[in-house]
């Protein structure tokens, strides 16, 4: 992967694929296939601050969030509490965000993850620069990267 000022879709996709294959099983890959995201669901976000600012967010349906948690904790879905979901999704976005951070030039610091039911709005100074619409186990998964608008050199 190359160090860039703005992560490419391909690089972010590679990060997401690596996280999914490492922790959620290579036999059930996350596919580059857009599936309509119903309202609701879970969001997990992590922010980057310091040399530059960013927010990386993963949005999942309730079903996908439960499947992620159940797979990572190796326990039946019915045994996964909301606290388990928050913890597993937090670790998931931590890995995606940390590796997206490594694609960018300059030093910066990762926050602790924020996980909740519903959307997590990025800071008002950030704009969406990358959006991956994916499918895992037939459920939509959306990964977005928000950065400050690029300064106009003119």
């Amino acid at each position, binding site marked *: 992967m190359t160090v860039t000022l703005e992560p490419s879709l391909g690089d972010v996709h590679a990060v997401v694929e*690596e*996280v999914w294959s*490492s*922790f959620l099983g290579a036999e059930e890959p996350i596919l580059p296939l857009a599936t309509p995201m119903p309202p609701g669901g879970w969001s997990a976000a992590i922010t980057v601050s310091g040399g530059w600012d960013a927010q990386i967010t993963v949005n999942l349906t309730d079903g996908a969030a439960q499947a992620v*948690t159940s797979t*990572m*904790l*190796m326990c039946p879905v019915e045994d996964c509490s909301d606290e*388990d979901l928050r*913890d*597993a999704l*937090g*670790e998931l976005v*931590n*890995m995606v*965000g*940390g*590796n997206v*951070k*490594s694609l960018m030039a300059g*030093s910066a610091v*990762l*926050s*602790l993850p924020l996980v909740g039911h519903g959307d997590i709005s990025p800071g008002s100074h950030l704009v969406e620069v990358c959006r991956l619409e994916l499918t895992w186990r037939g459920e939509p998964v959306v990964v977005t990267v928000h950065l400050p608008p690029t300064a106009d050199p003119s």
Partner: protein
Amino acid sequence: MHALIIDDSKTMRSILRRIVTELGFDTTEAGNGQEALDALEAGLVPDICLIDWNMPLMDGYTFVTRVRADDRWRNVTLMMVTTESEHGQIVRALAAGAHEYVIKPFTPDAIIEKMELLGLVAQEVPA
């Protein structure tokens, strides 16, 4: 052999626990560096600590510096297991006394290979 797993994520502690238990380790878990330090102060002497970087109360880097500053724990092996992959941070952690550095996401084989290199697990002899 005993492993102290230090991560604020219960999920990640569970994943690491499964890996090192398969290798024959007993485990203790801590949710941050301060909890881990308290466990050491209480008399726990692990063979290895698996340490996340970003945690509330006390981060993994601070934990490494605190452990390395105390002669009681000079024989404890320290392995960072973290999403922090900036070159400068890796250098900082190793300079502070961490023996190995694993970047998340990892496969179980990556952890096992590092533990073999550290001499904590017998290396597999190719058939």
